[in-house]
């Protein structure tokens, strides 16, 4: 395997932390700074978390662990298998934690928050009761393109060079290398990239376990209860309820209150086959769409995701199904006999710059706009919110999340 560009010296890094450098020359910040060591500050005793998606669950869980009395409000159901119209985007997502791949379509800030996520996910998962089911995989990811589309690979690499100059977090692959890494992929891929620092969360299982843990912690969970949020209070259809602090994690549910928040449609297929084994997510570059397949436990794979500028929550279209299925089939013809277990569509909450925001005021913190980066950015956003609650002088990633 040919190595990519050499490592450049450490780049400007404003998020603090230790001096362990990753392959792109970035030092990794420490999450522990977002809690503890608080001086003369009265912590909120009661907190309402609005929205039981990924952010809402993580925050409720972490805050209850810190000894705060939490009430979690959810407009829909609390279980992942609820009907698609009322479940959070986190249930539809494939759970990729892909800092390099996503930096290519966003910016260096997303990358910085992404490498933080790679270290934070195992830490969080270790705090859940062990079930033997693996919840986080860190085997890197593969980017491939058909021979007629190799310019897409070159464009990907060129863009990476713009966003992260000198990044050495990937390797060039030839046909032989690809076969070594993923023997079940179709042999017609002659070139690719191996992004060594990428992972993915077994997200549905994680959400289920986290849901169980939230119940076990004794958090009050109020399902089928849509709320309006205000500083220090939430309003349900039954009336006002007061809390020391309200955290708004409603995603698109907050659309009426957050200017320029919109939904971006995404569609996925879930298939099952025992004929193919993949060790890591594989991304297929194509002139008009970039799709990925993520291996999940129990011989399942998620193929996603379309990205359509529409707030259309209706079921998957034939056009999208054709695109997703074709991509899968060309990755390996053996996918032809895979069984389609599920087709899902949902809306990603996004601001017009497609970047997340945390807005903190007295009595109300709003965290939203994670777009297609839910599992990639949730650790940074959660730790930033916690740092605000615990009144840390320099909340982690405040330069990226709090200054819009």
């Amino acid at each position, binding site marked *: 395997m040919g190595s990519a560009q050499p490592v450049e010296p450490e780049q400007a890094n404003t998020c603090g932390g230790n001096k362990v450098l990753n392959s792109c020359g970035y030092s990794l910040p420490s999450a522990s700074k977002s809690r503890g060591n608080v001086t003369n500050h009265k912590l909120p005793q009661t907190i309402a978390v609005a929205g039981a998606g990924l952010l809402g669950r993580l925050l409720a869980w972490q805050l209850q662990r810190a000894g705060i009395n939490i009430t979690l409000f959810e407009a829909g159901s609390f279980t992942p298998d609820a009907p698609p119209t009322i479940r959070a985007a986190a249930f539809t997502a494939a759970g990729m934690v892909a800092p390099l791949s996503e930096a290519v*379509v*966003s910016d260096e800030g997303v990358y910085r928050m992404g490498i933080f996520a790679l270290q934070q996910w195992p830490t969080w998962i270790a705090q859940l009761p062990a079930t033997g089911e693996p919840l986080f995989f860190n085997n890197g990811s593969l980017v491939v393109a058909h021979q007629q589309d190799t310019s897409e690979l070159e*464009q990907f690499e*060129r*863009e990476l060079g*713009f*966003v992260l100059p000198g990044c050495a977090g990937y390797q060039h692959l030839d046909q032989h290398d690809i076969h070594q890494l993923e023997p079940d992929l179709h042999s017609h891929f002659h070139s690719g990239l191996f992004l060594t620092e990428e992972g993915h969360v077994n997200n549905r299982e994680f959400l289920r376990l986290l849901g169980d843990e939230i119940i076990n912690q004794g958090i009050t969970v109020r399902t089928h209860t849509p709320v309006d949020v205000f500083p220090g209070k939430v309003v349900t259809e039954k009336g006002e309820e007061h809390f020391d602090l309200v955290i708004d994690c409603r995603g698109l549910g907050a659309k009426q209150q957050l200017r*320029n928040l*919109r*939904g971006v*449609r995404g569609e996925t297929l879930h298939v099952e086959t025992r004929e193919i084994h993949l060790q890591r997510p594989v991304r297929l570059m194509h*002139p*008009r769409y970039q799709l990925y397949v993520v291996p999940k436990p129990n011989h399942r794979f998620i193929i996603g995701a379309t990205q*359509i*500028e*529409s*707030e*259309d929550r*209706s079921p998957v*279209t034939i*056009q999208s199904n054709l695109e997703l299925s074709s991509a899968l089939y060309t990755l390996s013809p053996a996918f032809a006999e895979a069984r389609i277990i599920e087709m899902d569509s949902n809306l990603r909450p*996004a601001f*017009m*710059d*497609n*970047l997340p925001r945390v807005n903190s005021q007295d009595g109300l913190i709003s965290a939203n706009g994670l777009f297609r980066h839910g599992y990639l950015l949730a650790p940074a956003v959660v730790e930033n919110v916690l740092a605000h609650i615990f009144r840390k002088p320099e909340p982690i990633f405040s330069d990226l999340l709090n200054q819009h």
Partner: protein
Amino acid sequence: MSYHKPEQDFTLYGETFSSRFLLGTALYASPQLMRDAIIQSRCEIVTLGLRRQNPANRDGDAIWQYIQQSGCRLLPNTAGCKSVKEAVTLAEMSREIFNTDWIKLEVVGDDYNLQPDPFGLVEASEILIKKGFKVLPYCTDDLILCKRLLDVGCEVLMPWGAPIGTGQGLLNRYNLRTLRERIKDVPMIIDAGLGAPSQAAEAMEMGFDGILLNTAVAKAHNPPLMAEAFGDAIDAGRKAYKAGLMQKRQTASPSTPTIGQPFWHQQ
């Protein structure tokens, strides 16, 4: 003394524009980048596709309103339509949603390179013009196709430079030159296939009236800066066309007088 003569109007279906640059709104990393690119391009017309946004339900409202805030004239397109019926239906829906009878007509003939279907394009143009639409057809550089589109009532033609998204530039200069020479009085906009500002300048130097593009700006690392670069190139190419390009010559011709130079320095 100024050598600038007043610029001839860039007039499409009776409306006059000062910018000859039309920009697409797809493929940007974010709507905000798209908006910044529109501003930097100085364009006055933006095109947008509705096919996949469930327009019957108006599910694209959030992004449509954001694009409308640019203040540009909206040119809805039928990208993604593979049949005459699909294109006509979508055009009618676009007219209703955006309150405009302008339509950038695309009828896709080939799934992979999105090459226009010339037969479907003529048929759909005829239907839509009879329904009162002002059709801007995305076509190939075939002279006869362009004549047929004029026959059915198109008042603007939008021949490709190269297939959509390829960035190949002007692939068939002979055809494009023929088009310009044979169809002098109809505005012609080079639509699709351009990858670099120099290619846009070249098309304008050839006498084309405007440029429509999307991918080259949207997929640049810095879309607003690339939009500005294309805007500059389109202006430069237009000025060069108006100024009159010199003819290429086979032999070198010194631009300073040779009087006074010893004759043995001359070949």
